[in-house]
């Protein structure tokens, strides 16, 4: 069985985790912090003795997993407690379910799966929990008790695999446009409509349009916490994963491409349409967008996922751990909704009517 990588403190031997504040590997036990490359050099020196261990697939044949299931399962041995960690093949980092030690799975992010870059966590778990509280604050239609009664079931820091699409767009658009003027001639109103054909050609460059490469993550949820600043991405190292969960992609870049194209096209169309000014109407008749020099990169993006439970329903929230952007749909109290609607109707309609009667009676109006 393969050993799960586990970054040990060179000082006291406790587990090291990547700190969102320090941007280093921190030891919670002795308080030391170590730069990533120091630990990596240390690890590679030690690993040399053990790399002969080959990738072994642990089939739990006859034990319960079907052949099909087993193909997607991997088992590792926790380096801290020696227990067996069974995960699915896309999990690149997790915690040992028995001792809670952070474990990075070797090989999952190797070869074609090795990310080109990683955006490290900048926001801590506590910031994510505070953000949930802020998210609920001031929401008038939030059911009473949602804030106090709901239990945060799980907060997990996840590195989500994204494909970043880079492309140059050449656009050639035509619009039917009109200018309208009207003037009076005797008893007639004369309206003149001048018709134009507009042509706009231009160039637009896109850097790093992200598309979620994990089928486990909800695509809409992942788009909602955008944008990410990929200029701040770091060279990939498994040390960044320590203390977090990580996944490798299971949706191929080719399958993500249509979504990137769709978004790029929408932005190009909008940008070109914005150059049409001074017309009463402008209707696009033909929009041609050529995408060139397309490049794809694989990057791990940091996300805090929060699950809360309230009245037997699970609510999922996500936080962009680079920018702090926090999203998640909240339940709407239907009673409060109608109270607001009818309350204002009565206040404005009834109050207005009473005021009108008063003013009419006093002869003010």
């Amino acid at each position, binding site marked *: 069985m393969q050993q799960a990588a586990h970054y040990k403190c060179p000082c006291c031997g406790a587990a090291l985790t990547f700190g969102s504040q320090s941007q280093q590997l921190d030891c919670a036990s002795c308080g030391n912090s170590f730069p990533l490359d120091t630990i990596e050099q240390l690890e590679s020196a030690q690993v040399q003795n053990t790399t002969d261990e080959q990738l072994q697939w642990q089939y739990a044949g006859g034990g319960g997993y079907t052949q099909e299931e087993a193909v997607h399962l991997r088992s590792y041995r926790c380096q801290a407690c020696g227990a067996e960690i069974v995960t699915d093949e896309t999990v690149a980092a997790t915690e040992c379910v028995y001792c809670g030690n952070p474990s990075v799975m070797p090989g999952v992010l190797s070869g074609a799966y090795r990310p080109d870059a990683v955006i490290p966590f900048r926001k801590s778990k506590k910031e994510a929990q505070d953000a949930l509280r802020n998210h609920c604050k001031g929401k008038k239609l939030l059911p009473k008790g949602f804030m106090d009664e709901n239990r945060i079931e799980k907060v997990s820091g996840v590195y989500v695999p994204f494909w970043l699409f880079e492309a140059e767009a050449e656009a050639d658009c035509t619009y039917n446009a009109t200018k309208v003027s009207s003037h009076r001639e005797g008893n007639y109103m004369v309206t003149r409509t001048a018709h134009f054909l*507009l042509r706009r050609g231009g160039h637009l460059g896109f850097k790093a349009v992200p598309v979620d490469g994990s089928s486990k993550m909800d695509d809409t949820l992942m788009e*909602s916490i955008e944008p990410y600043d990929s200029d701040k991405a770091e060279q990939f190292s498994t040390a960044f994963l320590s203390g977090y969960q990580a996944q490798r992609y299971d949706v191929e870049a080719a399958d993500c491409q249509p979504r990137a194209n769709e978004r790029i096209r929408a932005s190009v169309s909008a940008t070109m349409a914005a150059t049409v000014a001074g017309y009463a109407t402008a209707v696009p008749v033909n929009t041609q967008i050529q995408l060139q020099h397309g490049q794809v990169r694989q990057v791990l993006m940091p996300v805090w996922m929060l699950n809360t439970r309230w009245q037997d329903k699970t609510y999922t929230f996500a936080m962009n751990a680079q920018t702090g952007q926090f999203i998640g749909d909240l339940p709407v109290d239907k009673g409060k909704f109608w109270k607001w*609607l009818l309350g204002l109707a009565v206040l404005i309609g009834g109050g207005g009517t009473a005021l009108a009667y008063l003013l009419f009676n006093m002869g003010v109006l």
Partner: protein
Amino acid sequence: MKKFLAMLLMLLLFVSPALADQSRVIDESDVLTADQEAALEKAIALIGEQYQFDILLLTKDSIDGKVPRYYAADYYDYNGYGYGDSHDGTMLLLVTGGGEGNRDYTIVNTGKGEKVMSDSAMYEIEDDILPYLRMSNYSTAMARFVTGVEARLADYTPARRTAKVAPILILIGVAVGAIVALVLKGQMKTVRRKVGASSYIRDGSFHLSRVQDIYLYTSTTRRKIETQSSGGHGGGGFTGSSGTHHTSHSGKF
């Protein structure tokens, strides 16, 4: 000084029985019988008592080329018609032409009369009385004028006016309530697909290589402007020589 002179002039002009007993029906053209005059006086007196609102009916053969609404307004003002400080009331002046001259009518409103006799109210009353005026049936025209004004006064009570605006206010209330409630509901939903990729446009990468605006043709449409077909015309607001504000409608018949 100017005002005083004008007042003096008016007093000289309008030395008539009206001053003495403050009749509300002054039939200088003599187009009404004594019975008709008495009936109108009685009706006007009742309205005045109930609504604190004056109605003056004046007929003249000729006003010597003066503008009817100014003549009427001055007659009303200098003879002290109207209830209260704002001289609430309305009047109908009929210039009967004495058989050959101009036949004019004018409605002049003062004080509360300006509100009671709205533009649309005056148009309705004009439409109602003009056929009778054209037939020289003055008594019916004047009786219908009085009835028309009374109906508008009955509509002008606080309760009736409130009943008119209440549905609009309630509708506004429901609309505002719905908008606010929907905005609050919208705040609860933050998980949305992105439409474009505008955050990822490379700075300074946008440039236009072709801008062509080709003129094709012009199409023209003509629409006839509908004009008010009524014979009368609104005079809008004006201030008479006495300094009192009035509104009026005038026309020929």
